[in-house]
């Protein structure tokens, strides 16, 4: 293709996005668009899968059967989200195995939030309320993103996530209304998960160089700081409603901007975790890699069995 041709394709492509048309896997797309989407979508898929671990940690110890069932269902949903997202990413010409390899080698990232430990039952509430709450804010924006399979996956996922978020809030509410021990447990979880949740929106706008490009492709519709502000404004009243205190002495209502001012995130901690040195980065990767390695013989068996069945069918047909 001549440069002129490419340029014209690119222009048409950008115009389609501008018109809010969806890009589908078979459509022409710039190589950078494809790569960026593979990176972001697989990262999103990996986050779902790694995100199963902190909550999975409480399945065996859930305090009631009702909560155990709900938690199992939630973690299973996350596995399901991982499945959609891997499938959606595969439409861009990468296999699930390749994506796993990137995860296991550390080449691909996943959401840093899952590198924090779930240390008490109240963390299961906090994760649902805050982490899923933050995730939805990111994801709702993505329902209108330009790449069709990603946008459709997001629509489906958002519905379930908002159910999870309510469930997490309800767990926290129940604790906040419970005995003093339970209330303390809920407050403690909020204390520990608040700041990492704010970090989920990424670095500040002025340190987020890819924002402009992502905006153009509708991979982002608002900036990191805008989304973070939205999360704070949404969550603070929820905490107040159930009598919990946001662990930020600088938090206060700003009448002028009709939103909350809040304290500075510990960016050193943010970068430490992103770079692989959070409290659980190693554990999470060990768990994923050992599940993968221990499962190799199972996956191999399934492939060989399927081939044998195929052969049998062919032989019968002959």
């Amino acid at each position, binding site marked *: 293709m001549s440069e002129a041709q490419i340029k014209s394709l690119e222009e048409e492509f950008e115009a389609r996005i501008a018109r809010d048309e969806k890009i589908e896997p078979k459509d022409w797309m710039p190589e950078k668009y494809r790569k960026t989407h593979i990176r972001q979508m697989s990262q999103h898929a990996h986050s779902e899968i790694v995100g199963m671990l902190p909550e999975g940690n409480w*399945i065996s110890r859930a305090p009631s*059967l009702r909560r155990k069932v709900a938690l199992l269902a939630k973690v299973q949903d996350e*596995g399901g989200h991982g499945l959609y997202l891997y499938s959606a990413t595969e439409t861009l010409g990468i296999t699930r195995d390749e994506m796993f390899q990137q995860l296991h080698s550390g080449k691909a990232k996943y959401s840093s939030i899952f590198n924090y430990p779930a240390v008490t039952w109240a963390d299961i509430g906090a994760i649902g309320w805050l982490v899923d709450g933050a995730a939805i804010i990111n994801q709702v924006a993505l329902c209108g993103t330009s790449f069709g399979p990603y946008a459709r996956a997001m629509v489906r996922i958002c519905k379930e996530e908002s159910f999870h978020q309510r469930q997490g809030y309800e767990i926290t509410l129940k604790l906040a209304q419970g005995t003093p021990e339970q209330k303390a447990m809920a407050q403690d979880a909020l204390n520990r998960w608040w700041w990492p949740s704010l970090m989920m929106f990424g670095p500040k706008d002025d340190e987020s160089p890819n924002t402009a490009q992502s905006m153009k492709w509708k991979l982002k519709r608002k900036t990191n700081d805008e989304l973070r502000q939205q999360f704070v404004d949404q969550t603070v009243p929820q905490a107040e409603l159930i009598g919990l205190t946001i662990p930020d002495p600088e938090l206060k209502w700003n009448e002028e901007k009709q939103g909350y001012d809040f304290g500075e995130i510990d960016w050193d901690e943010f970068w430490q975790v992103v770079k692989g040195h959070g409290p659980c980065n190693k554990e999470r990767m060990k*768990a994923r890699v050992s599940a993968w390695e221990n499962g190799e013989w199972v996956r*191999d068996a*399934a492939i060989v069995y399927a081939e044998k069945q195929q052969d049998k069918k062919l032989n019968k047909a002959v």
Partner: protein
Amino acid sequence: MNTNLYNYLLGIADNSLILGQRLGELCGHGPSLETDIALTNISLDLFGQVRSYYQYAAKVAGDNRDEDTIAMMRPEREYVSVLLVEQPNTDFGYVIARQFLFDVYHYMFLTELQNSKDETLAAIAKKSIKEVSYHVRFSSDWIKRLGDGTEESHARIQNAINDLWTYTDELFHQTEADKEMINEGVGVDTSKLKEQYYKHISEVLNEATLEVPDLKYFQKGGKQGVHTEHMGYILTELQYMQRAYPNMSW
């Protein structure tokens, strides 16, 4: 209260509780996303059934017991699950073998339980059997895949079947409560299922190119609350929150 009915309910439900707990341990650690989701789903089904049985048991007991205290506040010697379901998740072969050996029994059992004179039990059975028919299909399919897959998978699943076979006989033992409930037309006469059970199991194993173990000695004790040493560790986790924070709502 009707002690026999109560004990009969625990005899059914404890199996699902402990097996569900074992499967829950695997969540997030499966050999593939699909098997991970499927096993979690089976765990979910089992816990759902458990809740129905224990809720009914709490009603039968008619005191301050509820589904959670029944599930989590008994001493080990009062859990009457069979030894099979508490066996560890040694590898995926053991998980599938344990599931298969239980599912086939569970399906046959629920099929009969639908005819129970106890309407609540019959209703639980009707609801559960749809789920369990999926479980049997899942575990039987994997028995075939692993048995007729690679040399390694064949050896592993054969090994798991051989090891767990010793726990199958207990599925058909009858406690006093069982006998009473059978007499009253409430319980299932499992002695009538035994031959068919081994026949069906053998057919699937044969199809999976696996050998049917030839074992004279079997283990028992679970139904009398005498478990293997694995059970204690299952209970430390299962019971932790209820023990550490008694009498609270969650």
